């Protein structure tokens, strides 16, 4: 089964990479570029079904995504572009095509630029590039910081960014900044609506709200050492139905802090990030009284990779996730300030077949039980017999980009 999958997946991706190349054509005097990417994954676990897929038993190949991009540099300072994206991840995504981003970007000076429209959200090292499998060492980024099932929640905002980059005096390196504001609007085929539907019979119809934040990264005087900090504030409202009654959840506080560092040296790279997501919500379920729920999620990882030659790179990371929650809703059910801990030890091998195609083989060794209030990769419907405390997973992912 596995060998058959890898062989057919690799052949299909190779075939695509041979047929598909970046296209460039002209509209009037302007060059227009078309690029695309896609991946096909296979996940097999020894216990617990993972990421809404039926991964135990024979494994699952319901792990596919693709993006198509079009853009044009109108002048040396002005650029427009957009990207469509679609995915299937177990019960999530469901091939609903999304406008991933669509922007107009005007760069006044190297230290001052503006972009507006639907914009990818810069948050930590990888949030805005988390779909780009070819660019990362790992088949799955550390799930404590970049949960793939919650990808839709953080990926983009409708609004605008101010950004720039400037060299610092006295050989202190350079800084790059992004400040943004706008609105987040989640897909209903994402992990959080799925969690509410399957764990609590809450059927969301909308989820989103104002969001603003920023990112500051310092390219330090130590060659190839980058340090950064990101902050995001949100005011989220979710509406839907619970047992036929109107359901509303509204954030009183909802913020994320992320700290990160990355070092590259010749064939080596090493990176680490810490993320804290805190939210305090009011929940109204068709009654005058409001319930509240608070959640404090902290994740971090340390990882790195080594490029052996132009065909092979190996890497590893250690990822830690902790979710602490409390509040009147939680008290009422049973748990009180309960916490979930997850550890994930990962080893990976990335094979670069040609400049368009990669194949990754990755082992995950996870330790920790999921909770029922916020998605952490493991969901109730796919694990109706209960959760095991440990999970080992094999992930194979082939990808192409042009």
């Amino acid at each position, binding site marked *: 089964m596995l060998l058959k999958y890898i062989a057919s997946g690799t052949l299909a991706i190779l075939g695509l990479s041979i047929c598909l190349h*970046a296209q460039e054509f002209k509209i009037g005097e302007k060059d227009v*570029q078309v*690029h695309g*990417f896609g991946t096909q994954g296979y996940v097999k676990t020894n216990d617990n079904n993972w990421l809404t897929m039926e991964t135990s038993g024979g494994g699952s190949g319901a792990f596919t995504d693709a*993006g198509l*991009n079009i*853009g*044009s*540099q109108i002048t*040396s300072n002005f*650029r427009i*572009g957009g*990207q469509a994206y679609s995915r299937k991840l177990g019960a999530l995504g469901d091939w609903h095509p999304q406008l991933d*981003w669509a*922007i107009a*970007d005007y*760069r006044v000076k*190297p230290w001052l630029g503006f*972009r507006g429209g639907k*914009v*990818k959200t810069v948050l930590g090292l990888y949030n*805005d*590039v988390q*779909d*780009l499998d*070819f*660019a990362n060492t790992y088949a799955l980024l550390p799930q404590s910081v970049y949960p793939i099932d919650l990808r839709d929640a953080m990926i983009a905002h409708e609004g605008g960014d101010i950004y720039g*980059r400037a060299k610092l005096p006295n050989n202190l390196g350079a800084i*790059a900044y992004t400040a943004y504001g706008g609105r987040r609007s989640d897909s209903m085929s994402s992990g959080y609506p799925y969690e509410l539907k399957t764990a609590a019979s809450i059927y969301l119809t909308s989820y989103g709200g104002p969001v603003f934040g920023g990112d500051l990264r310092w390219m330090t005087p130590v060659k190839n050492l980058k340090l950064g900090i990101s902050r995001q504030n949100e005011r989220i409202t979710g509406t839907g139905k619970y047992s036929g009654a109107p359901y509303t959840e509204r954030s009183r506080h909802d913020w994320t802090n992320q700290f990160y560092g990355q070092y590259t040296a*010749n064939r080596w790279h090493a990176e680490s990030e810490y993320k804290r997501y805190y939210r305090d919500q009011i929940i109204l379920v068709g009654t005058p009284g409001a319930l509240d729920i608070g959640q404090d999620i902290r994740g971090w990882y340390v990882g790195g990779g080594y*490029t052996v030659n*132009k065909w092979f790179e190996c890497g590893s990371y250690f990822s830690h996730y902790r979710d602490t929650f409390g509040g009147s809703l939680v008290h009422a059910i049973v748990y009180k300030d309960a916490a979930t801990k997850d550890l994930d030890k990962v080893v990976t091998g990335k094979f*670069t077949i040609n*400049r368009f195609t990669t194949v990754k083989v990755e082992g995950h060794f996870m330790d920790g039980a999921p909770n029922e209030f916020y998605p952490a990769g493991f969901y109730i419907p796919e694990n109706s017999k209960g959760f095991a405390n440990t999970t080992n997973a094999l992930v194979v992912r082939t990808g192409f*980009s042009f």
Partner: protein
Amino acid sequence: MKKYFLAILILFGSLLLTAKAQAQAVVIANPSVKSADVSKSDLRDVFTGAASTLKDGSHVTPVLLKAGGAHDEFLSAYVGKNDSAFRAGWRSLVFSGQASMPKSLDSEAAVVEFVAHNPGAIGYIGKGTAHEGVKVLSVR
């Protein structure tokens, strides 16, 4: 037998040296670019999409070779990445909406032609390639 291995060693050694000598890359720019030289870090920033100006304030647009010895040598000497990693970096910028992909041309002659006729263009070619109409930037 020893002589055979020695000959093989000399043959491969000379091949490697020849390849290295042929692959030395020269950085060229359109005459509109004010600078006569460029720092290695500026060059890396421009060719990885991190910056679009040189120290003197000149706005520059990078142009790439699709493949070849000069391309590999340039990446190795000034960018510190192999071709796959280099293009993956650019695709990351393209797919996250932060940049457009630079032009990638088939031959060194085409790079010279493009750089010569496009203000602000900056590229690279092999050491022995004719380069009329462009200026050569020394790398500090």
